[in-house]
Each structure stands twice: as structure tokens, then as C-alpha cells.
């Protein structure tokens, strides 16, 4: 991989730091009056998801990380590995470990495309689409006539996620959910 110098550090650039692939979030030049310049860099560790800051001397460089994002459909799991397939027509499959799924595990639905981050061809992170349609498998019976406002109740979705839904929702209904906030949006 190519090396990148501090002034090439831009938001989204993927670099290696302490053996882990990281994505650069922000890069700010710090230059006291007349002296040595430094770069204050905010990065996200793509393995742990943690965001941290580091200072580099301007002109220092980091090795690029072989990281790419691909769209893949979720297929199934055998409770040890989760399987995804490329949507480019190659039918190529990737086995993903639970830790790469993170929060996305509760938004998994077969045949839905997810964004898979690959590092050296290993899946290290799975991101759900912003909105997903899921079926209600368990909730208290819907209250008739309550379609306008008032309260909410928990509902368990087919993916296992539990979200707050309006009182009028019934089991078996398909709902549109915002995966970023985990909130109910509407009936699908």
C-alpha cells in the first residue's frame, strides 16, 4: 500500500495505525507562531469502532490500509458465522464474525443489502441500510381508534430488535425502521 503524508490526510482516508486499520475523520494543522508544525488528527479505529486523537509531526506519513466498502446481501448464520454474498453477480460469499456485526446484528434480514467493510479481504464491519422494513413478531394487541397520537409500546421485530411503536400497531404488520436511531418511522 502507498504511504500517505500528513497533508494528504483527508476525511475518509484509510490508514494503518498501531497495526489496526483506521479511518481519518478530521485533520487540523497546528503551527505555533514560528516553529515546527504538527497535525492533530481524529481517527476511527475500524476494528474497535473507537474514535481517538493523535498528533503527528507535519510531514510524517502512515501506510495506507487496504480497506474497501462493498455491498453484500445477508444470507444466513450458523450461530458461529454470519454469511453475506456480493451483489455484483459473482455470488462470492464472506463469513463474518459476530464482533464485526456489532449493533447491526439486530437489524439483519435475509436478502437485504448491507455495507461490508473489508480489510485485507476480511469483513471487519457491517453497516445496516439507514431504513429497513421488518415484521412485528410480538407486541400487545393494537388499540382500535388510536391512530393519531398518544403512547407507545414495545414491539419485537423479526430480526430480534425491540423498538417503541405506536399503540395501534399489531403483530404481523411490516414497519419501516430507522436503523441509526432505532426508531419506528411508519407502516411499510
Amino acid at each position, binding site marked *: 500500500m502507498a504511504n500517505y503524508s500528513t*497533508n494528504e490526510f483527508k476525511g475518509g482516508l484509510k490508514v494503518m*495505525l*498501531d497495526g489496526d486499520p483506521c479511518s481519518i475523520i478530521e*485533520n*487540523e*494543522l*497546528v*503551527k*505555533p*507562531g*514560528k*516553529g*515546527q*508544525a*504538527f497535525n*492533530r488528527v481524529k481517527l476511527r479505529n475500524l476494528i474497535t469502532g473507537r474514535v*481517538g*486523537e*493523535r*498528533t*503527528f*509531526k*507535519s*510531514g510524517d506519513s502512515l501506510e495506507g490500509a487496504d480497506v474497501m466498502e462493498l455491498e453484500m446481501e445477508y444470507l444466513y448464520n450458523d450461530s458461529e458465522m454470519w454469511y453475506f454474498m456480493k451483489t455484483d453477480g459473482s455470488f462470492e460469499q464472506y463469513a463474518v464474525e459476530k464482533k464485526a456485526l456489532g449493533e447491526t446484528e439486530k437489524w439483519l434480514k435475509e436478502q437485504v443489502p448491507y455495507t461490508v467493510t473489508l480489510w485485507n479481504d476480511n469483513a471487519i464491519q457491517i453497516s445496516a441500510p439507514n431504513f429497513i422494513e421488518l415484521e412485528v413478531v410480538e407486541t400487545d394487541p393494537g388499540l382500535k381508534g388510536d391512530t393519531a397520537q398518544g403512547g407507545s409500546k414495545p414491539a419485537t421485530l423479526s430480526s430480534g430488535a425491540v423498538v417503541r411503536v405506536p399503540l395501534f400497531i399489531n403483530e404481523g404488520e411490516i414497519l419501516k425502521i430507522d436503523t441509526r436511531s432505532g426508531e419506528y418511522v411508519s407502516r411499510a
Partner: protein
Amino acid sequence: MTESWRPTATIETLRERARLLANVRHFFAARGVLEVETPVLGQGGSTDVHLVSLSTMARTDRGQRRLWLQTSPEFHMKRLLAAGSGPIFQLAKSFRDGEVGVRHNIEFTMLEWYRPGFTLPDLIDETTTLVANMLPSFHGPVVHYRYRQLFHTYLAVDPFTTSLEALRRLAAERGQMSTGAMVNEGRDTCLDLLMGLVIEPQLGRNELSVVVDYPASQAALARRHQDTDGEWVASRFELYLNGIELANGYDELTDAAEQRARFIKDNAERRCLGLPEVDVDERLLAALEHGMPDGVGVALGIDRLVQLVLGKARLEEVLAFSTPNC
């Protein structure tokens, strides 16, 4: 995708900018300081180890020559002073390669002025008066600090006497740097990091902060003197507002031999660091040998001042076109 052709500043901001520059010209006209224009290109450049000069090849009357784009208009202006210009100011396009960020642009405008016969305190007064004039809504006081005092206050270390080992450790820790990142660095690099990262952001909060008595090793083109503790320090000041460095002033070095020695030392350090050497400005040295009147000078980043006055988050918002959009 089509490249954006649009300005990085709004037309309204450019109107405000023009008004502020007119104020600057009025300020100096009222004080009898002559506006000058000097070349952006020079046969010599800045040897400063921490500045990266741009240069270009030109076909001159002496054949193909490397000409340097100025990092500030200092050298040409000092030649005018030696020729008897009296007090002068300039709004000068200057260039520093690689300096890109929310407060930096490779090409920027420097307001620089020189006051033969003034002392450093006179110049500090004039600089803070100018900045206060540009910011009519700002009523904070002007507060003076010594470099040493700031390190005691914010880091509980003495910049002159603390061991290099301890400074390296402190810099690496405060900078959240990789292990060993500072082990080969000198005193000034450690101090620069601590100043830039820890102290500067605290300066100029509801006040204009003036910092004096920098280490003698950071004198650049300023004289040196012994401070009240007997420590050799640079006869230099910096002005801060809202955590941003705005201006850097010197009691100007007028000794040609000392100036030559500093240029040569810079280029030696450049060789050690594997940086390209910069042609020494022989004409500046000749002017100093002829004799430049004692006096003081200051460089103020006018883009940054406009940015502060107009409350813009990014420097590019006060530039018609930032370098990435030029």
C-alpha cells in the same frame, strides 16, 4: 463530476473584507506609514527550517534562474528601510507550501509593517490598537504574558530548565503521540508542540493576549536579550485572539554578520534534516551591511483577522478562492 467554479467566500464577505482592508490603509495613512509594494519573487528565500518555500524557474537576463516565492515580504521591506524609506507597511501575498487547514492556506495575505525608532512595547501598543479598531464590538483588555510564565501556568514545567527527557515525555503524552515519536526531537520541537497544542488554544479568551520572552533559539530574525531572570530570550512578541495566533513582531536584527550566521545555521540544519537548502538573500545581507536603522516590525495574518472579525469558521470563507479551489 464538474469541478466547482464558485468562490469560497460569499460576495457579501468580499465586500466586508474590502471595507476592513480600507480601514487598515486608513489606519496607517493617518499615522504617516507609507504603503509599499515589493516583489513576490526573490533570488533569495527564507531559510527558516519550519517554512517550506515554493519556487519557480524563470528565464531572466542572467539565464535560467530559480526564483523564490516569498514566505513574507520581510526581506524586500528591510532593503527599503536600509534605503531610508522610513515607516512602511504592505499587504503582501505570501506563500507557505503544505500549510492547509481551517486557519491556513498556502497562498495568503500578510499585513507587515516596520517602525524605525520604535521599541517593541511601542509596536505592541500599535498592533493591539489596530486589532481593537478592527473589532469595534470587542472590549477585552490587553494582557501580557511571558513564555516561561505560560508554561508554568498550563503545564507546571519550566521551558528553559526542565530536562529534554522530561519535555519529550510531556510532549508525547499531551500530543497522544505514538510511542517513541518524540525520542529524537530537540527542545524547541517539544516546546512548539506544547505551545501549539496546549497553551495557544487557551490564549486570547475575551482578551488580547501578548506573549513575550520566547526562548533565544526561537528568535528567527529578532534580536536576543537577557530577561529579568538572566535567561537569553528572543526580542519578539506574538499576539493571540480566540486561541488563534494573529501577529508576530520583532525587534529587528540589524547585524549583517549575525544574520548571515543564522542563515548558514538554518541551511546546515536543513541539510541534517534532509530538507532542500534555500538560497541566502545576499541583497538583504548587503542592505544590512550598508546599515538598516534600528527598529521593529510585525507580520499579521490579515486573512485570520478578517476571519475573526466576521466570525467565519474556516479561513477559506474569507478568501475569494482558497488554494484547493484556485
